[in-house]
């Protein structure tokens, strides 16, 4: 029996919004889907911010999300989307990610933005965490299209019960 016939699932808990974590989240998610695994990424806490629409999709240089000043302040310091992710180390005020982006381009690695698009195309379930959305004051229309409905920890753990799980 081919291994595909087993009910194989991959669930990734995407907790970090750093470039060097978002990249493996999306590389593993697209590869999981390519391998025929039913793949779900549950985006929570800092990991939720890459699901925000990129600024250029709004036709604005920079936008703030949130309903009150605390959420807006958080948004001003933590830019959403996949176009401007920071490195968890060696960020050097943005120089690190730019160098990493250049290296990735030279090596024809897909950008996080391209991988997010591929994940949606391949039917990866992208689930925003409802609690994080509430906490950060994010509305459904702040997030990109093609996501599953927001869900909570119980839904995520139920999905993870018979799956390979990764916390990144």
């Amino acid at each position, binding site marked *: 029996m*081919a*291994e*595909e*016939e087993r009910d194989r699932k991959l669930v990734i808990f995407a907790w970090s919004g750093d470039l060097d974590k978002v990249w493996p989240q999306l*590389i593993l998610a*697209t*590869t999981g*889907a*390519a*391998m*025929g695994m039913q793949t779900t990424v549950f985006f929570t806490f800092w990991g939720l911010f890459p699901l925000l629409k990129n600024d250029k999709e709004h036709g604005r240089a920079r936008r703030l999300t949130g309903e009150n000043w605390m959420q807006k302040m958080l948004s001003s310091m933590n830019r959403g989307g996949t176009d401007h992710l920071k490195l968890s180390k060696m960020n050097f005020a943005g120089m690190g990610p730019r160098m990493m982006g250049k290296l990735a381009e030279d*090596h*024809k*690695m*897909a950008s996080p933005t391209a991988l997010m698009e*591929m994940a949606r*195309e*391949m039917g990866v379930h992208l689930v925003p965490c409802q609690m994080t959305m509430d906490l950060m004051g994010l509305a459904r229309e702040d997030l990109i299209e093609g996501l599953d409905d927001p869900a909570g920890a119980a839904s995520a753990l139920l999905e993870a019960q018979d799956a390979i799980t990764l916390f990144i």
Partner: protein
Amino acid sequence: MSTTVAQTLDLKGLSCPLPIVKTAMAIKALQSGELLEALATDPGSVPDFAAWCRSTGNELVEQTTDDGVFRFVIRKR
């Protein structure tokens, strides 16, 4: 079963995970038993194509290397 290649994918220069992701997307368009040829230059694609075939049940019919280009012939299950 077909012995001629139905489609050739040029994956040269691409890095992980693109060779596998693009192969998985392309093979969907093929009929069962048809052959897909993939050409890659990422050395990691050698173990990765073997793993992907094992995982998906598609058959790796042939794997050759010519001047830094890895060639994979895969029969769709």
